[in-house]
């Protein structure tokens, strides 16, 4: 962590303190992908309109493509890579695999992040809750149903108490 008052931005990413001198206007997405090598957060539109780049910021699903670093300062950021613990997929990721809920998979990182937050806040969601939580996430391949099925299965399946993203 940088000392108080020094230039640069300090934040936490997947539990690790990060200090960066990158221009504070830089969207968080590019710090994650290009400086920290966390390529799982993806660029889709750069306008907060597709959900491909969603990460948790202080626990809230947030597009990282239009969040400048200065706005992320002091925050706790969790990316798709931070959901797995010790290499084990979390329950949403496991359920997405079990349901084979993907085609190209480009949309999945943001969706998995948002669904993990949903289950933390709403442990027993209805299908409607899941759809509403994912409404701002676009999927062009049409895997919506499988994703909804997977999130519902993650809520009721084994291990639901253990990993809450």
């Amino acid at each position, binding site marked *: 962590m940088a000392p108080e008052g020094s230039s640069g931005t300090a934040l936490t990413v997947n539990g690790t303190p990060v200090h960066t001198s990158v221009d504070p206007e830089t969207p968080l997405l590019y710090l994650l992908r290009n400086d920290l090598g966390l390529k799982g957060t993806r660029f*889709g*539109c750069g306008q907060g309109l*597709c959900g491909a780049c969603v990460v948790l910021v202080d626990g809230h699903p947030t597009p990282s493509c239009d969040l400048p670093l200065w706005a992320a300062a002091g925050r706790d950021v969790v990316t798709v890579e931070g959901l797995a613990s010790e290499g084990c997929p979390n329950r949403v990721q496991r359920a997405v695999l079990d349901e084979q809920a*993907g085609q*190209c998979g480009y949309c999945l990182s943001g969706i998995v992040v948002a669904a993990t937050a949903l289950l933390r806040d709403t442990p027993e969601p209805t299908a409607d809750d899941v759809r509403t939580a994912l409404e701002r*996430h676009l999927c062009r391949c049409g895997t919506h*149903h499988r994703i909804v099925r997977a999130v519902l299965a993650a809520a009721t399946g084994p291990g639901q108490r253990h990993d809450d993203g």
Partner: protein
Amino acid sequence: MTTADPARSAADTLPPSLAANPRLSTWLDLSDTGHVLVRVGKVELGQGIWTALTQAAAEELGVDDSRVVVQPVSTAAGPAEGLTAGSLSVARSVAALRQVCAEVRALLIEVAAARLDADPAALVVRDGVVGTAAGDSAVSYWDLDADVLDRDARGPSWVRPAPAPADPPNPPRVDLPDKVLGRPRFLHDLHLPGQVWGRVVRPPVRAAHLSTVDTSLVGAHVIATVRQGDFLGVVAEREEVAIRAAAALADTAQWELPPNPAGTGDPAQPRRSAPADRIDVVNICDATAAVGVVTTVRATYTRPFLAHAAIGPSCAIARWAGSQLTVWSHSQGVYPLRAALAVVFGVPEQDVVVHHVEAAGSYGHNGADDAAFDAALLARAVPGRPVQVVWSRADELGSGPLGPAMAVDVEAGLDARGHVATWSVDVWSQGHVARPGYGGSHGLLGAAHRDRQVLPPSVDPPLAAGGGSVRNADPGYDFPARRVTGHRVVDTRVRTSSLRALGAFTNVFAIESLMDELSRRIGADPLEYRLAHLSDPRARAVLERAAELAGWRREQGGRDQAAADAGRGIAWARYKGTSGYCAVVADVEAVHEIRVTRLVIAADVGRIVSLDGVVNQLEGGAIQAASWTLLEQARLDGHRVTSTDWETYPILRFRAVPDVHVEVINRPDEPSVGAGEIAHGPTAAAIANAVRDALGVDVRDLPLTPERIVAALET
């Protein structure tokens, strides 16, 4: 002894891609680690093609799935299989790979038999271990001399692929774990040593010319500004710097605009007044049928220009070392791209290598090839360094090729019973293909800008390959007399190329809508009416199965209940007239807008290679088609595409996506064909037919927006 060359005559029966690349070792290697490395000329488009190939190879070789590793496609190694496009991908590659693997297995058994001093016929293969049934002596594939693979395939007269298993296999997707865990997997995630980032500034409209630009304002950390002709771009050490610099350039660039094409007709429609190439598909006259015609019904059906709208925009990485160019691309055709790049950079083809790397789902000819040129031109400014280009969302929706707008005129001559005696179709559309190499053009957008040209008009694939504009324009019914004519409009106002299903989407929508209108004219059940004109047993089977699954009540036009604002519709097609069969039943609610509540699908794609893969493709295809049908239209202002973000080009979201139920009829004795494009046309027509059922109006122009519905109700 005969004088015929046995190798030559056997090769004639090889699957086409194997005949073109007969060397077994081109396709397959046995690695030291106990794996089988499979090289195919087909790329993963996000549709699970690799999983299908893995499964086919494992089955034929007699090894566990986990031993098969499909290698990335590259012009540097592997068979040149051309494009990965349409349903041929699965069909061709799977057929070739099955034959290759069956021969490899037989060859390895021969070698093992010699080694074990056993009768080859008495040996069995268990996960790559060849041995006697009793298990007293055995040797593994990986202990044998792999040089035996260095020979040409002999063909099915020597050894045939195994019969299909009774239960279709259901392997999990091989690529999904990486994607779910957020591991780098996409081309966008590739980060090569020394990599820098490039961005391109596009002309605001087609055929605009760059007059001035102030390159002094791009700011710090920009390594190069590239201006050649109308091509304008930047290279920077950081990605966000390249993005900002490109925006700064765009702000100061002055463009000389072409004359406004206003007055040349509705830009959202194919221009019927423009010159057109005529495509004669079929013309069968039947004097008796013509004489029996008592009524003629005509209608025109249209769809607008559509965007590919992949969630990840087009991307490429390129690096020059001297005159050698290496490109990483998600192109559907790495060989044609290599040839095009060689032409536009004036270098020999052997100096260009194109490696395929996966990207977001690809639904046809998107900006992937263009991005490869962009990266390569920018990389010239920084020799030795790889340059990654990622298109902006605006360029992805506005500069990539669009699926052409279409208009289909259908005319049915009805006999005294109201059955079809004569049928004619006229299809109006710009061409559906402008891929690199088609129509004699390099097809690369940035190269056209550099050279201050406009890309030539798109063409259509030949009829033998399923056609483009006229794909599925010939209905699959037993109409005694029919004429089908295409009019490929020669127009360059809007850049068009292949989008999933090509012309089949609109043609099936048109044919199956009119069939519905005709059935309702005589008060017949839409399913019964179709069956009365249909003898193909596989077509009947999918229709009847979909109807049964949906609870279709023939005595009441399909519906199971009579809610005032609910409707149900059915439609089917055999994709390309030669490929997979698909029938769809749609349920809709029509209140303020059309809501599709459920789609029930029955399909027949021959022998099932991977059941869940087929189901996933059908679900995804139907949902994408529902999105096209309900919402999608590229907005145009003269030459300019104005629908350049997700607000102006909306697609179907989670809350509006219908339930989808799929059943696949397995036909183990029929060849495997693709499922990715077969649901599109039937889904559109089934939805439109359900709207007709609900509201009693014929809506013949897509998308089925609330304004369109209101307009139809008022007329």
